């Protein structure tokens, strides 16, 4: 392997006003992970570098960091796979969280949000008998098996685009956890949990950018879990939220007209609420300027609306 230049995010709250990058250059051993390289730096070049790690086998969730801008568990990332053409690797702490020192992020906010979704089983029925387990068929276990592999490393939260603009959003990890319990046949409080999660900051605030699915080092696929939560909420007729109405109205409009009428959507999603609607004004103006909304045209159906309706019907039947 050739020399690699590691550009490492440094910040010591005791001495630095702002963060900076420090460069370390050396030739890692064949087969080194990024964590091996950080350890090499700490043990041989500069012991002041601070980062978290423990299991070095991708299970404890300590070592999530941004490598070249994307969150990864550095203990399972082979360095040869992330060297950029100019021979550098950039290492930053996870995003969407304050930095405590160098590569160590403050996860308090992460845990507060996790706590908010009631991340534990709330059974309402007793098990079949005192000295026995709840029965759960393998199919039922499979409904949440993948989501249960979450190691709470925060990688998905780091790269979540919704969180970047909306600090209130519970985020992918907490919502995936909420799904994990909502899907568990032993749980008896799914409805209550869902009721809370349709509120602001909850399941409808994900913008479906798919970053979390890409970045999750396990098999959780948080966005998919969020979509499943939405389906659950709709099935349980928890439609009294902006997000749920948005989806219902969206499908309804497309079903009738074969095309989205952007004038009708906000009015029906938000309900007739002058204050909220006024808040939409800048978006509406933008849409007019971009030609997405033509305020003066009467509402119309597109040609071939029957085809759209047929697709619509078939999808409904299929679900």
């Amino acid at each position, binding site marked *: 392997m050739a020399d690699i230049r590691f550009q490492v995010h440094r910040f*010591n*709250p*005791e*001495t630095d006003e702002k963060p900076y990058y420090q460069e370390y250059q050396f030739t890692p051993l064949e*087969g080194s992970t990024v964590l091996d390289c950080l350890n090499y730096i*700490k*043990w*041989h070049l500069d*012991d*002041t570098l*601070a*980062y*978290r*790690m*423990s*299991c*070095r*086998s*991708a*299970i*404890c*969730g*300590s070592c999530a960091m941004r490598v070249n801008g994307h969150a990864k568990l550095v203990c*399972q990332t*082979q360095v040869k796979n992330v060297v950029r053409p100019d021979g550098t690797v950039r290492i930053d702490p996870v995003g969407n969280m304050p930095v*405590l*020192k*160098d590569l*160590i992020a403050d*996860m308090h906010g992460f845990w507060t949000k*996790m*706590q908010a979704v*009631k*991340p*534990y*089983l709330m*059974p309402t029925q007793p*098990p079949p008998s005192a*000295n*026995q*387990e*709840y*029965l*759960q*068929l*393998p199919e*039922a*276990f499979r409904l*949440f*098996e993948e989501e*249960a*592999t*979450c*190691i*709470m490393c925060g990688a998905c939260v780091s790269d979540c685009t919704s969180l970047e603009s909306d600090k209130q959003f519970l985020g992918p990890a907490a919502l995936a956890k909420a799904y994990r*319990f909502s899907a*568990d046949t*032993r*749980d008896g409080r799914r409805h209550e949990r869902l009721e809370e999660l349709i509120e602001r900051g909850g399941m409808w605030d994900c913008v479906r950018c798919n970053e979390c699915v890409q970045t999750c080092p396990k*098999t959780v696929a948080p966005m998919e879990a969020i979509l499943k939560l939405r389906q659950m909420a709709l099935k349980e007729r928890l439609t009294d939220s902006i997000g749920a109405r948005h989806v219902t109205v969206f499908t309804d409009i497309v079903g009738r007209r074969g095309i989205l009428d952007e004038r009708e959507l906000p009015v029906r999603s938000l309900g007739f609420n002058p204050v909220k609607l006024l808040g939409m004004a800048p978006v509406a103006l933008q849409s007019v300027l971009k030609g997405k909304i033509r305020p003066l045209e009467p509402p119309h159906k597109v040609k071939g609306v029957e085809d759209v309706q047929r697709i619509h019907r078939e999808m409904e039947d299929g679900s």
Partner: protein
Amino acid sequence: MPTHDVVIVGSGLAGMRAALEVCQGASVAIVSKVHPVRSHSGAAQGGIAAALGNMPPERTAKIQARIENGAVLPDEELNEDSILLHWFDICKGGDYLVDQDAAQMTAENAPTLIYQYERWGAAFSRLPNGKIAQRPFGGHQAPRACYAADRTGHALLHCLWEQVMKRSDQVTVYSEWIVLDLIIRDNICRGLVVWDLNTGRLETVHTKAVIFATGGYGRAFSITTNAFANTGDGIAIAYRNGVPLMDMEFVQFHPTGLYRLGILLSEGARGEGAYLINGEGERFMHRYAPTLLEKGPRDIVARAEMMEIMEGRGGGPKKDYIYLDLRHLPAELVRTRLPQISDLVTKFVGIDWSKELIPIQPAAHYSMGGIPTTLQGEVILDAQETLVKGLYAAGECSCVSVHGANRLGVNSLLEATVTGWAAGRAALAHSQQAELAPLPADATASAEAEVKGILENEGTESVADLRKTLQEAMTEKCGVFRDADHLKQCLETVKDLQHRFHNVHIRDKGQVFNTALQEAIELGHMLDFAETIVEGALARQESRGAHARLEYFDLKTAAGVRDDENWLKHTLAYRDGDGVRLDYKPVRIFKFKPIARKY
């Protein structure tokens, strides 16, 4: 000053399980150097043992033939798994250095405590009838490993953390706080000195009872499956405070650590039918465990691998490793039951298990020894079981002793659970009748001196170099096979390193997240307890369980020479001035009489 009725150090299975007991009646805090879900328990893969008897009878039926004659087993219990059988397997697996009442308590409480996990929501894999899935595991005569794919530890650790989050008003968690010292005066434990990694402050924690649940000491070895956090802190701190360490020479080497890295490939792999192959492409286990073959217990398999290597039949250019072969296993089975393994193999060594052999070698895995306790987790000071009032230990850092000379797979998550539960109950009861004992004026003196001694040291020794020297010496000279010459050399190295440690230098002098200082403190711990491992091993002139002395080992038959007459006793290692003083303690044997351990 933080004050709680009970303070638990460590948040693995033992620590959190204890907290869930204590919080039912007293104020409790958990102090942990890593966030609870980062604890090493999460890395456990294979399963947790309990005689639930969930597997269909046709898979358990075969077991009756293999009950050894020395075991007192009523006939009617033989047709299916039972607590008695589990109890027996623990004692035999531990080469009879097991305190049989401890093994009994463990086997008896296993089913209830597993059901409790399940009720708390643990994500266990399931059988077609909806019950918790179980599978066979080395040394267990029935398929009694309850599992969650190959991430059982993760499922249980997260389950406990969820329950702690649910009780966040009852359990205070001090995360990334590192315990440096115990405050014991007149044999009463009064509190702890803790270093807050977040701020660099030293805190005194005042309490009626302390439970140590600080995990194992695998990091004293260079090839280990253990996390970086497993530096035996609690063990060293107890030792420095006059508590003896029991059976430290018994270190389990896991036969399937990834070559050079030590990363564990679960025994679940062999349980599911993987083969072990030597450099000549031959399955060799028939020479060492003719009946159980690859499913033999860990110490026997690890020694078999070393013997293949010693006799020149290893794999690779240096002939220094063995292969694990999964190629014949159905992809679906590997996907559903061993998903983590295939992922690890792909990511860490870039191997396609369905086409290639996986290089492996024995790796330090589990610490049988530790802080001696009663069945209730109370820490004891001597063979007469004198107690330190208010001090408890549970989990891998403790030695009760349920595993004796060798622990069977999937029994240690169970031990962490059972001992955590028991110590939690005992500490709760104690705290309900005890008063807070006053703190001495010099409570923080020795911890302050320790930190200052490192921060202000302008010596020339580096933590990384000293640590590497220690780890390599321990693996090479105090590893799977041991002999007096090498052990003596190893002891010399450890003493020399202890000396050089006084000259250790770190550059980081800061307060916030000074992980250089943390690593130095941890090294200090390892240098202290490593000496007890080597001294214990040197003194013990026999082979038993995981302790194999070449002088007492027949390489032809691959059998160790166990000396029940002289050595069927627990080692107690005390700190004595600059060295170690050894004492011994009888083993409690009342049910199964020691017989030869063959598989």
